[in-house]
């Protein structure tokens, strides 16, 4: 079975930053399956840029844990997909390699930050892809492009080799056109890795089941309120109706901490990012530092020139949030809010087995439509809470509004990724039939 896969895609959406024309593969569960990998996951011998100028020439000397597992199971790594620079965005427009277009409508964004992976799937270039999700970066593009994406429970997939944006929030996760393929890919990548100390030894080994009779589906009012396009809300309510037809019951639940979610999320992720990205200083990454300058000046210049505007904005925000005199007012408070949201979900998930709602408040934006950062940040309102709570969340396509895909989000208890996969699978099987 082992061999080489020829990969020369018609990448008119600019889904890839790097493609591997001849991708070698071995025997295994995914023998010969083309898998696209988001360009913030380290691949030995294949440059890994995070869609940033500062990492343009960086070729990792080692494979991320998930890549080791993929190779072991015979997957052919066919390329590295486009993304928002360092994962900072929801449109894939902040990439230093140009924006990716949405295959469903090339005038629209594919969502982000894993926009390249979603677009590659939607355009039919690959059957499976890896994304990463810090505040919705798998689910948002899955929703906008009409594919399936799972953000696993925090600690279920090793982050070893994932170039960190916000360590305490993010996970690598599977993306595909079907729930079944998402589940297959998840079975390969969710294996224990002692190198990631935040991981638990809870491997995922599951075949999805469509039997959801008796499943209690929590419907939080906050997911259907202000800011959510009523037509999107309606489409998702229909999807919940389908689950009911399949034997599930619905219960109203509430996540009151939601109103702090975005503020908490942006303080934590920018704080961690400001620290994670500090190593990109021109000494070992990026163009050589001008040695005639003092090193502080040289660092400043290199970082100014090689980080995009959104990255610089978030690094500055995070630096500020962690500064002496402000850390108590911002970072400490954000951790408190995070704790509250976590408890809200725990409580809601005592009454319900899964929580359902829209993935995104709207359908895909037009390219260049969102120019002010705040309105973009608001688009993460329905996805970021699952990252703050560390719970699994899946987005599965559930119809269209204005001809554009809508994502149906299902969240579950920690380490019950199987259950959200089953619920999504039941829905998908029913509407396909």
């Amino acid at each position, binding site marked *: 079975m082992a061999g080489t896969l020829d990969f020369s895609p018609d990448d008119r959406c600019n889904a890839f930053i790097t493609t591997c024309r001849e991708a070698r593969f071995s025997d295994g569960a995914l023998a010969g399956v083309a898998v696209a990998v988001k360009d913030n996951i380290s691949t030995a011998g294949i440059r890994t840029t995070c869609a940033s100028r500062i990492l343009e020439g960086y070729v990792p000397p080692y494979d991320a844990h998930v890549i080791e597992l993929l190779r072991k199971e015979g997957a052919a790594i066919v390329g590295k997909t486009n993304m928002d620079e360092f994962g900072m965005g929801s449109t894939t427009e902040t990439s230093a390699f140009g924006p990716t277009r949405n295959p469903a409508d090339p005038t629209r964004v594919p969502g982000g930050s894993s926009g390249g992976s979603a677009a590659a799937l939607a355009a039919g270039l690959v059957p499976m892809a890896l994304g990463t999700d810090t505040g919705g970066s798998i689910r948002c593009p899955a929703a906008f492009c009409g594919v399936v994406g799972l953000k696993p429970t925090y600690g279920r997939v090793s982050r070893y080799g994932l170039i960190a944006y916000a360590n305490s929030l993010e996970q690598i996760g599977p993306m595909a056109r079907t729930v079944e393929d998402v589940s297959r890919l998840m079975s390969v990548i969710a294996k224990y890795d002692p190198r990631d100390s935040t991981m638990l030894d809870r491997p995922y080994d599951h075949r999805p089941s469509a039997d959801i009779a008796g499943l209690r589906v929590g419907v939080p009012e906050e997911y259907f309120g202000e800011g959510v396009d009523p037509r999107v809300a309606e489409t998702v309510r229909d999807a919940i109706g389908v689950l009911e037809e399949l034997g599930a019951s619905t219960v109203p639940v509430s996540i009151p901490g939601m109103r702090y979610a975005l503020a908490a999320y942006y303080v934590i992720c920018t704080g961690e990012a400001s620290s994670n990205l500090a*190593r990109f200083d021109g000494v070992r990454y990026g163009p050589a530092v001008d040695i005639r300058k003092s090193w502080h000046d040289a660092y400043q210049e290199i970082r100014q020139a090689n980080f995009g505007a959104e990255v610089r904005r978030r690094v500055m925000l995070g630096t500020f949030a962690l500064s002496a005199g402000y850390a108590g007012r911002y970072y400490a408070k954000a951790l408190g809010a995070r704790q509250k949201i976590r408890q809200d979900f725990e409580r809601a998930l005592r009454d319900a087995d899964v929580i359902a709602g829209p993935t995104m408040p709207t359908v895909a934006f037009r390219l260049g439509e969102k120019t002010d950062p705040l309105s973009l940040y608001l688009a993460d309102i329905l996805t970021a809470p699952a990252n703050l709570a560390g719970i699994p969340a899946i987005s599965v396509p559930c119809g269209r509004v204005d001809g554009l895909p809508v994502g149906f989000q299902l969240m579950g208890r920690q380490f019950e990724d199987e259950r959200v996969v089953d619920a999504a699978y039941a829905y998908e099987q029913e509407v396909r039939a």
Partner: protein
Amino acid sequence: MKTIVGLEIHVQLATATKLFCGCSTDYRDDGPNTHCCPVCLGLPGSLPRLNRKAVEYGLLVAKALGMRVLEESEFARKNYFYPDLPKAYQITQYDKPLAVEGIIEIEDDEGHEKIVRITRVHLEEDPGRLVHVAGASKYSLVDYNRSGIPLLEIVTEPDMRSPQEARRFLNKLRTILEYLRVFDGDREGSLRVDANISLEGSERVEVKNISSYKGVEKALTFEVTRQKNLRRRGQTVTRETRHFMEGRGITTSARGKEEEHDYRYFPEPDLRPLRVTDWVAEIDLPELPAARKNRFMAQYGISPNHARTLTGDPKLADFYERVAPVDPALAATWVADTLLGELNYRDMSIAAVPADRIAELLGLLRAETVTDRAGVQVLREMLDACAAGRPSERPAAIVKRENLGRTTGDDFSAIVRTVIASNPQAVEDYHAGRKGALNFLVGQVMKETRGRADPRELGRIVSECIEKGEV
């Protein structure tokens, strides 16, 4: 004016591997950047994995110093830019250190016991090292072999009152760490100290990065003088950070950026909090210096001074215990006084000395086969061989080759007679009751016999000869 000193000591823990990766810590004889991996190079995507041994070593120290181990301690990131810091942050512990509130007893300047309180101990990673290439001032090189070596930072309360107390504290601490076998003081750069010093009523000055024991006392002595002089001239001491210039023995102000640092500490998201209070009960403390000293006095019947010297270094104490069976008192004198002096003179470590050979030498001394003086000669030959990396000859062989065996009175009655005959003035002085005369004559005989005779015995023979008029 009272002097107030507090110390922050960074010691490299002698684990086999680094704090957060599997790289070996034994890099000192190897080329630069040969003990590195994605983790200690801070490559994007790498994650730290805590070395359990380093935590155990930290707890061992905490227990030995009678500290309270926190129910939950936590790693934190200390963020700053420096070319030797590959991640641009150091993983350390901030508001939740491993352990707090300990003590070390030292002698104050009057010889009384006093307590220095230990505020906290915490674990952190060592940064890499900048290498400045001689003659090429345009750039520096970075060596990451040191990056990720486990450090234990030990912080004291400002309880020391003089540079000498600070030195005694460090010696005591070093001894304890060596007894715990968590630290190898012979490794270059394995201990670094930041010292806070103030005169009562003045601002505090921090002297950073002193890299030797002697350096601490020197730097502090310099600071006391500098600060006293400032006050004498009516100037005020400014609160600042200063650097110690080891070579010149002075401190200089580190004005500027370094003092404005905001390290933006926050909990390290890649590591879980540590809950290790359960481990503490399982830790067996080895015999510590004070207990060993008392045991030496009781078991071997040696003096407090000898016991203190011998237990001041666990390797020396082990050595003594190997040779003591020959004759504890004789061994104590020879090891603590003679051998130690010879080692210091040669800048040699006790580790290089073969205990079995020294035991043989002690046997010869005990059997009075050689005199003390000849014994020293034999010892020097043996040490010279060790220092040159050669195996030491057996002491008996050296005695034979150099003809150093003790000779008895009869063997040099001829020499005694000759000396007495050729120094009539001294004989006259002797009869006149001048003490020095006998010493002079004995000295002359010793010179002729190259130290093989016991001077006390010689004295007896010489005076007998004169008294009997046997010339």
